[in-house]
């Protein structure tokens, strides 16, 4: 349709992603029909608690969770128009680190403990970009400098254990961006770090993302981190996307009662000491024993009979989506 204000094709398009594991208690649907698009240069924050499926979803997109790990994976994943679901492990390896960079929560486990820092950063450049050892080593030092590591020449010759947690995460970021990927996936990148170091690492990630025009998926359980660093947010609960919207809309006028309850339960620095918190009753559901209704229903203030009987689908209205029969802040008739 020429002439219409259609947005350009997304960098990443995910349709009906499914991940299930077989467990002793039966099949467990860790991710249950999640769809989203990510445009070039944008940051999508994926927010959820442990067990919400946010990490498993993203790992399944890039082949880190799949047949090899005993998981059943379904749906369609288009990256620049190519379907990633059909790729062999070898084909995945040629994309990871070059077109898609990844930063994990714990740099101590994602870095190779017995390889010098400089060599780890240069590895992708040698294997994927055809640089010789000398050129790769030179580029590794430049990258260390870029991610804010002092004395980069000396640091390049060190091992991960000789660095602090913040420094190691900087190294992990240098590795992730070495081959200039179009998409950076950051899975709880600062959860293991102290608050002042967290701040520096988030500033670095955001700076690199903007300067290089990368798209970023930022996975976090911390609503504060997501608020400051994401263009859009997808809230996950019990394996499903329950709300998607521009970041400001999520925080200003959440539609999904779960999002609303989560925001209300947070202690605020602006509240007086000993202000009682609005706790959410109950706890997240056991994914292996799911009922047919809304997964948040048992904890929801607005639950009705319909919520127990039917699972609300993610409905998209005016640029945002929510999976609820009783959305907050909308006229009746716009419910899912």
């Amino acid at each position: 349709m020429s002439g219409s204000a259609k947005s350009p094709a997304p960098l990443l398009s995910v349709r009906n992603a499914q991940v299930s594991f077989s467990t002793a208690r039966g099949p467990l649907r860790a991710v249950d029909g999640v769809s989203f698009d990510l445009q070039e240069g944008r940051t999508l924050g994926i927010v959820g608690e442990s067990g919400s499926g946010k990490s498993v979803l993203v790992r399944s997109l890039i082949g880190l969770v799949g047949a090899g790990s005993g998981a059943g994976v379904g749906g369609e994943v288009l990256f620049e128009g190519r379907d990633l679901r059909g790729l062999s492990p070898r084909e995945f390896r040629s994309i990871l680190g070059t077109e898609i960079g990844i930063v994990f929560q714990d740099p101590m486990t994602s870095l190779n403990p017995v390889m010098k820092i400089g060599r780890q950063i240069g590895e992708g450049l040698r294997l994927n970009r055809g640089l010789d050892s000398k050129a790769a080593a030179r580029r590794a030092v430049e990258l260390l400098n870029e991610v804010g590591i002092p004395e980069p020449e000396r640091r390049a010759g060190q091992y991960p254990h000789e660095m602090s947690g913040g420094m190691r995460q900087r190294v992990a970021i240098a590795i992730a961006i070495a081959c200039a990927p179009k998409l950076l996936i950051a899975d709880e990148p600062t959860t293991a770090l102290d608050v002042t170091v967290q701040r520096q690492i988030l500033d670095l990630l955001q700076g690199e993302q903007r300067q290089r025009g990368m798209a970023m998926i930022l996975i976090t359980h911390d609503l504060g981190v997501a608020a400051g660093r994401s263009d859009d947010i997808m809230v996950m609960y019990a394996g499903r996307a329950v709300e998607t919207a521009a970041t400001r809309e999520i925080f200003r006028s959440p539609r999904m009662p779960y999002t609303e309850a989560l925001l209300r339960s947070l202690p605020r620095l602006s509240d007086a000491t000993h202000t009682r918190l609005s706790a959410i009753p109950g706890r997240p559901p056991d994914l292996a024993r799911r009922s047919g209704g809304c997964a948040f229903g048992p904890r929801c203030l607005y639950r009705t009979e319909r919520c127990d009987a039917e699972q609300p689908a993610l409905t998209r209205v005016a640029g945002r989506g929510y999976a609820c029969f009783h959305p907050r802040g909308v006229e009746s008739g716009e419910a899912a």
Partner: protein
Amino acid sequence: MSDLLAIRNLVVEYPVGGGRHVHAVSDVTLSVKQGETLGLVGESGSGKSSLARALLQLPPPKAGAVVFDGKDLTQMRGQALRAMRPRLQMIFQDPIASLNPRRKVAEIIAEPLVVSGVSDAAERTRRVRAVMEAVGLDPDLVWNRRPHEFSGGQCQRIAIARALVLEPSLIVCDEPVSALDVSIRAQIVNLLEDMKARFGLTLLFIAHDLAVVKSVSDRVAVMYLGRLCEVADSDSLFATPAHPYTAALMAAIPVPDPDVPLGDTKLKPGDPPSPLDPPSGCRFRTRCPHAQPRCTDEVPPLRQIAPGREVACHFPLVG
């Protein structure tokens, strides 16, 4: 309010081989008033957990005094110290790891009673049931179950029940909610507040989440690399931090509101130094935007700048 606990010139050091030591806590003097919640904040390596363990004599500190209800615990040994223990209890960060996986919930909660010599089984059962009900666990449902059958939040309730069963005066809470899911944290924070009111507890609440600390604490102490930076009532500390490190911490907090601009920590680039080899003078000086030559030469003492406000800085931002 009188002091229930007074820590004086506390020093905790751990040997790491080669004659070197981790300077975990260096010359800390701090008091906790009867009935208050004192928040203790700091980043990893600040010594907040070492301080908590030293005051419970787990293990005893290298130097200094821990005066609890008029008695110096560091001078007590054996039976005398054991007799004090029921009055000081602790709740840990990881509720699942802190519970014995092979024991039933009722046994876990009854264990402190057994250890402290409550030999009447009917009396133990009565007290365990009462404390289960107090923390929101149904005794008939949980009695014979084991920790793995419970979520993290429920395990923290069990740990709180175990800490309460001896009717202590002081509970040290070491990061009690940071391992819990976001939607569960408020339940446990509210439970601790309720238990404090119901049992007249005094709490030392250690956490790195400043919003949680502000929510529960009457006063807050800030630690950095083993030393105290600042002690103040909660409202003044958060409204007008006096120590540059406190100010940096506040500016670094990710606020769950996209309309609040990111604060400027003003920190010099670089990571916190190692507690193996802390800087001379003020330990914060290597990252401090206001550092002067004096900060290298002289350790700033903790001094009062206003009633109830103490700061260890040569150039405080307030006062």
